[in-house]
């Protein structure tokens, strides 16, 4: 666990980058610091591995004040991934990944073996190991950056806008990869981004920061979407919060009905389309085991008759869910009545943060609104 | 000898313009001509040659290699070699210095044109510029700061290198060094060094000014 206690960073010219920040980063989960530029999110991150030292306050790593640890030693125990990957251009990929193991005095053979293992873990072909960074694409470099940070198996990983320099498609796949890795590794990850969608997608907990280095709200993503603490957070979250919130509700509980005869199915049980007067019409599918309610709703909207087709992993039809079935689940997960959810966009609804904070859907993480 | 001051002002007054061919003002004039001629010639040759190197990429590699070799040769060596062709004339200094200027200016022209952002080039094409017009109105102006940076280096180097020509009797102010050495007399040497440095600083300043005027859209580039 990483604890910030009244941490302030004031530069010599008087600007305050981080102002009296207190929060807890839970072990084994992804905590995202998000906010507009100038909100102190990167500064906060960099104070953890002492790339920057706080002016006042205390940052503790599992109870120990980081100021008591010599910076290089501290940093060797914390993985660090930055925007442009920051790979050493003069070292081959394998040696880049093995940097920290070398620093820790591992044998060359062991360090390289570990590096190869990590390259595989982050989904890079072993043939890339002997290349130099300039021979890799931006996305590949970023994967190497992640592998390098993981090399010495540090319990904590700091990621400073690691995916913001790559194109949206590569970014999405890197995000998915990170979530997959995290499900195996269970690291304590602090992730900085200015992209709220990325924050909501990756974070178990999201800390929204405002300009001047103050914490605006810290909550699980689902709670954040339904119960933004104030106007700033609401505006920062952007449009379609209601729809986006559905990403955090599993479609597992959607009531399925047997497929009607209008659904044409091939011999393996895969859907071909809805029978209409002049042939087959489009259809939408979702997998109740893995998909969210948002996907189910989307599937329903894609079919001419408003019925979503539920499939299993192999793509075989398991049943269908009409809009009524989806509505039932939506009602079950309706946001709290007192929340400002229904008033999205209306400036007059800018109330104080909701009093009690009921759990918002299945979103993980802590859900305390932190008013500032 | 130990009492000899670094500078005797009366000597300067007597020798500034005394009508002799070794008067300081005459040497200064000689120096200026011998130093600027190579830069001017170099620029006249470097622009078309640089353009050719950009147009036909294969030309650049050998040209750059040749210029690199030229640049690594000591000036006295080139003067000595040209001595056998052009004798004890001004050309013996001007021709080698022109090669030195080229060695700086051709890469500057090529880099300058390479510094034109592709978006600028593309939008010029898209607006319907024909190649010649595009070169003249878009690419060359954008390349000017880089070319001028090279021109500054070439000019200052040329001013300083001319003095070596004194060893073959064509060194402008450099002749003061020979004179001072032979007579164990500091004043001419100090005068020569000061005038050459002042000349270099003035020329550099003028080029910076020219860049400000020619390319008000770009701040003067620092050259080191």
């Amino acid at each position, binding site marked *: 666990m990483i604890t910030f206690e009244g941490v302030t960073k004031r530069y010599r010219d008087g600007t305050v980058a981080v102002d009296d920040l207190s929060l807890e980063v839970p072990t084994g989960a992804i905590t995202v610091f998000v906010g507009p530029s100038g909100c102190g999110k990167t500064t906060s991150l960099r104070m953890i*591995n002492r*790339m920057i030292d706080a002016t006042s306050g205390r940052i503790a790593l599992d109870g120990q004040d980081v100021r008591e640890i010599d910076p*290089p030693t*501290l*940093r*060797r*125990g914390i993985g*660090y991934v*930055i*925007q*442009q*990957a*920051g*790979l*050493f*251009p*003069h*070292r*081959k990929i394998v040696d880049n990944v093995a*940097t*920290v193991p070398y*620093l820790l005095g591992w044998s060359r053979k062991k360090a390289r073996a570990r590096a190869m293992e990590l390259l595989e873990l982050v989904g890079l072909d072993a043939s890339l190991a002997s290349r*130099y*960074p*300039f021979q890799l694409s931006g996305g590949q470099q970023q994967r190497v*950056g992640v592998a*390098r*940070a993981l090399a010495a198996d540090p319990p904590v990983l700091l990621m400073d806008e690691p995916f913001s320099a790559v194109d949206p498609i590569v970014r999405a796949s890197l995000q998915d990869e990170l979530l997959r890795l995290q499900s195996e590794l269970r690291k304590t990850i602090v992730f900085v981004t200015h992209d709220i969608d990325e924050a909501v997608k990756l974070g178990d907990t999201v800390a929204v920061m405002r300009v001047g280095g103050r914490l605006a709200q810290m909550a699980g993503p689902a709670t954040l979407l339904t119960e933004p603490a104030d106007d700033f957070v609401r505006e920062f979250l952007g449009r379609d919060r209601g729809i986006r919130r559905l990403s955090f509700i599993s479609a597992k509980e959607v009531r399925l009905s047997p497929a009607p005869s209008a659904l044409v199915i091939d011999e393996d049980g895969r859907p071909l389309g809805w029978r209409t007067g002049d042939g087959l019409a489009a259809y939408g599918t979702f997998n109740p085991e893995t998909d969210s309610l948002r996907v189910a709703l989307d599937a329903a909207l894609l079919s001419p008759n408003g019925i979503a087709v539920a499939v299993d992993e192999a793509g075989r039809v398991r049943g269908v869910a009409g809009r009524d079935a989806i509505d039932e689940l939506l009602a079950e997960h309706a946001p709290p009545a007192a929340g400002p959810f229904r008033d999205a966009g209306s400036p007059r609804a800018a109330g104080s943060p909701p009093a009690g904070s009921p759990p918002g859907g299945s979103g993980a993480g802590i859900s305390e609104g932190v008013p500032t | 000898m130990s009492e000899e001051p670094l500078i005797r002002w009366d000597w300067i007054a007597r020798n500034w313009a005394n009508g002799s061919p070794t008067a300081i003002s005459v040497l200064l004039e000689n120096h200026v001509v011998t130093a600027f001629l190579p830069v001017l010639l170099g620029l006249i040759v470097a622009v078309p040659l640089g353009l050719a190197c950009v147009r036909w990429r294969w030309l650049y590699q050998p040209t750059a290699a040749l210029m690199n*070799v030229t640049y*690594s*040769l*000591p000036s*006295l*060596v080139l003067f*000595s*070699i040209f*001595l*056998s062709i052009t004798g004890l004339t001004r050309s013996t200094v001007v021709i080698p210095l022109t090669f030195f200027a080229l060695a700086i200016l051709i890469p500057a022209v090529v880099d300058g044109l390479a510094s034109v952002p592709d978006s600028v080039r593309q939008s010029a094409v898209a607006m319907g510029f024909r190649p010649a017009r595009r070169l003249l109105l878009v690419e060359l102006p954008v390349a000017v700061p880089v070319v001028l940076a090279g021109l500054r*280096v070439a000019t*200052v*180097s040329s001013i*300083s290198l001319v*003095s*070596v020509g004194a*060893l073959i009797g064509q060194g402008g102010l*450099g002749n003061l*060094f020979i004179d*001072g*050495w032979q007579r164990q007399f*500091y004043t001419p*040497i*100090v005068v*020569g*060094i000061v005038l*050459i*440095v002042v000349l*270099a*600083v003035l020329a*550099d300043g003028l080029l910076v000014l020219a860049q400000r005027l020619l390319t008000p859209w770009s701040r003067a580039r620092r050259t*080191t």
Partner: protein
Amino acid sequence: MNWLAGFFGDAGHWSGPDGIPARLLEHLEFSAAAFFVAALIAVPLGMLIGHTGRGALLVVVAANAARALPTLGLLVLVVLLAGVGTVLPVLIPLVVLAIPPILVNTYEGVRGVDADLRDAAYGMGLRGRQVLFQTLIPVALPLILLGLRLAAIQVVSTATIAAFVGLGGLGRFIIDGLATKTYADVIGGAVLVAALALAVQFVFVLLDRVAVSPGVRRVR
């Protein structure tokens, strides 16, 4: 060409203290001494300035001054002031003129190292010295070598001119030849110096191939 044949064909030019081998050795000695002293001063200084960012003005001034200062004038003045006859005073201008190219390029090389790279290096727990030796120097190496190469050529060139103020070496053939109007010696000496300069250039090209990581070699 006749002059060249005359110069190199003369058996007297191949032995004795005035012979080509002896003069070449002298030239190499002075040049190497001046070069190493200059490198010893300028490389650490350039790294320090590039790393800390303090004293950048010094680098700019040194670079411009070195270009504008007339070599011959400096040589003549320093040797006259320090006293004719010994080698040491001649070495001073040689060193002084060799420092700026090394200083400027080392500074530019170290300063030009990507801020992200530095950040990553510190972030992974490299200590100051490790950052310098494992990151900054390898990445700045192409420019450091360029500076050393320019300085080496500068030294060879200045040492040639220094024959005028009494230094030995290959420049003697040129200077003495000019004084006695023995143009065969002038041309012959010039060819020898040219060959030496090209050899120096070649050594540095080789060094670049061997020492610089393919990951940072500049494509030109």
